[in-house]
């Protein structure tokens, strides 16, 4: 019986299931595809907000969109803080 099962391909994942899984991952990546310009704008705005509250090392900021093979996508930001501003927040 096992021979027949193997012969007819019964022990593999069905190709429909494979397609479903691949499609999900492809779309996840497509939908989070972000242009370098957009990432640059995002970076500038994040810096604007953060500098109201703290002094940061702008040269060492690293912001990127992390896509692994799984379904998750993460915005990863590494922002070195030099010092936290005290007292009044300067809001222009």
């Amino acid at each position, binding site marked *: 019986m096992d021979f027949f*099962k193997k012969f007819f391909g019964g022990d593999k994942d069905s190709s429909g299931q494979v397609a479903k899984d691949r499609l999900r991952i492809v779309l996840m990546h497509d939908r989070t595809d972000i242009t370098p310009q957009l990432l640059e704008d995002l970076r500038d705005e994040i810096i604007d907000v953060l500098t109201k509250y703290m002094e940061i090392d702008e040269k060492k900021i690293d912001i990127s969109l992390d896509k692994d093979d799984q379904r998750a996508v993460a915005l990863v930001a590494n922002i070195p803080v030099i010092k936290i501003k005290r007292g009044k927040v300067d809001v222009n």
Partner: protein
Amino acid sequence: MAARVIVTTSGKGGVGKTTSTANIAAALAKFGKKVVAVDADVGLRNLDVIMGLENRVVYNFIDVIEKTCKMAQALVKDKRVPGLYLLPAAQTRTKDAVNPEQMIGLVEELKPEFDFVLLDCPAGIEGGFKNAAAGADEALVVTTPEIPAVRDADRIIGMLESMGKSPIRLIINRLRPNMVQDGDMLAKDDILDVLSIDLIGVVPEDESVIRSTNNGEPMTMTLDSPAAHAYLNIAERLLGHDVPLMDLESYATRGFFSKLKKFFTGKKK
């Protein structure tokens, strides 16, 4: 009369945009509506051939835009179904020959005369798509149960949404119920899960489509076939009627081999 303007689009080529446009247009006309199918695929026109009206094309919509002729001269009346018209595309021009504003103007001219204006969009996401989509209020997105087609549909849906088209509804074309049953094809729900838009119909793979293209006669005009049935249902749903989805499994014809396979592998679905 102010027509509903609907663009048929897909992103990917070869999934059945033109066939869908022709069959839905003919079906709507059969239901008594006055319909014009506009071939917005400048340079690669085919709607005329699918509808079997290629010998009657004299002018095209670019002639109308450039005022070489009147709208009434460019419209081709289908003599088989009352109320069905074709507005052909130019074959010897390129997609740059028109811009979105001109397409909107063209559609505005058609609107008072018809119940439905169906725009058959070219494949791709560039100028041709933008021209065709510009004039439309609603959209039908055609896909097949394959990763490339669904991926492109996702892209197109995003663009249609950002253009403010609503409703945007999905046609799943060329589904093979046998293969879905065997787990070897994306099922309707798999596609709806990822695209998350409303479904307006599922059209099964059907040899009648090839025959009807050979004969230049949309299936919904005469043929009684699964695909014709599916397109008639889609037209009814466009008219706001609540039509249940076809029982596609009843079309799944099973041969000896697949029964044998099912017996040994024990696959239920």
